[in-house]
């Protein structure tokens, strides 16, 4: 998976954010505390609920087919206390997992 690749969420796959969880996790991030332990976004497929953490949820929302992986990394970099290479690896690994699940498709 390359940083120039571009993906979008599979149309029709139900998902939603959990607003309270997003608020708590964002507050933790802003305060420099650990975040990522709570599910902030739910994806439901065949009755199975999968919770994405704050980073996964933010990547998910940006997968609308208009951005490359590199552009997603650029957009998230100021919001997470992590180096670019590490974030790029996280984004690539996460997208590879979503692709294997069939939750994103090449745009």
């Amino acid at each position: 998976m390359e940083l120039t690749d571009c993906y979008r969420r599979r149309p029709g796959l139900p998902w939603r954010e959990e607003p309270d969880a997003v608020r708590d996790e964002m507050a933790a991030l802003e305060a420099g505390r650990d975040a990522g332990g709570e599910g902030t976004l739910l994806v439901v497929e065949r009755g199975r609920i999968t919770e994405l953490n704050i980073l996964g949820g933010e990547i998910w929302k940006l997968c609308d087919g208009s951005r490359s992986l590199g552009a997603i990394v650029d957009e998230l970099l100021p919001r997470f206390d992590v180096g670019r290479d590490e974030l790029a690896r996280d984004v690539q690994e996460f997208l590879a997992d979503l692709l294997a699940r069939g939750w994103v498709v090449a745009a």
Partner: protein
Amino acid sequence: MSAPGKIYSAPLLVNWSLNYSCNFSCEHCYSRFEKAEELPTERVLEAGRRLAKAGVLFANFGGGEPLLRKDLLPVSKELTALGLSLSMNSNGWLLDEAAATGLRDAGFVSVGLSLDSHRPEVHDRFRNRPGSFDRVVAAAGHLVRAGVKLTISTVVCRINHQDLKPLLTLAKRLGAAQVYLHNFKCSGKGMEHRFELDLEPLEWRDFYREALGYADNPEWPEISFDDPILASLGARDEEHGIPGSTCGKLSLHVRPNGDITPCGFIPLVLGNLLRDDLPTLWRESSVLESMRHKTAKGKCTACGHYASCLGGCTARAFAVSGDLNAPDPHCWENPCG
């Protein structure tokens, strides 16, 4: 007091009875005696907007027979456009080729047909409608040819509990992707016919043991049976991680007039979708609070399965005892406890 499992910010699923009117009069019908004014089209759409705004992802139309609503297709099209993932249940009588393509074009993700026996005469008698078996089989064909995902809904009871394999065989032949095995509920006409139709606890155990043998087997349509008492067979659905009934934890029911109840089988009104704020009701309803924090009673107090089963189906317990915390009457564990 039990832990509820995770409670999200809003229900994921709403079972929505758009109408209680029906062209059938089935022996087990939970809603036959229910009376509620049907909302006009614009109010249904407003209700749908409120569901979507609250974050509800799935709406499943039941009733009543949804196809009796003349505005079903245009309403569904608009609700789909709001982002709701729609499904519905029908007896199939009115589901001809045009209806099937209309449902497809309105965006239905799946359509469920009620089929209670592989034997035409048994299905027709149970549904009190001669010819209903042939019509539902024809409806299945229309849906499959239209490219709509077909599911079959069977109310498991005295007339069919020993006929699971031929029923699944028929469902497979019809092209069903999924078979919902609904456990019999003592509500409405179901309560009236409870002693003729309901199974004894050990019969439920034997039925579920057999049914589990067909689960997760690609040879058969996918089988769904959301019944908390399966916990004692070690087979509770794992995907949602919610112990006990999912009603009031992942789902709610909406009546034709917009009244909200925990499920279609518990007649406790929490509020009204068009009058009240859904997320507030979801968060603050004392009825939902009681269902999410049940207290073991009777034989449940000594049962090792309670943590995952939470007394079984709250609706069944409430229907026969008036107590949300009473043990599920279908439960086969500790019969003398």
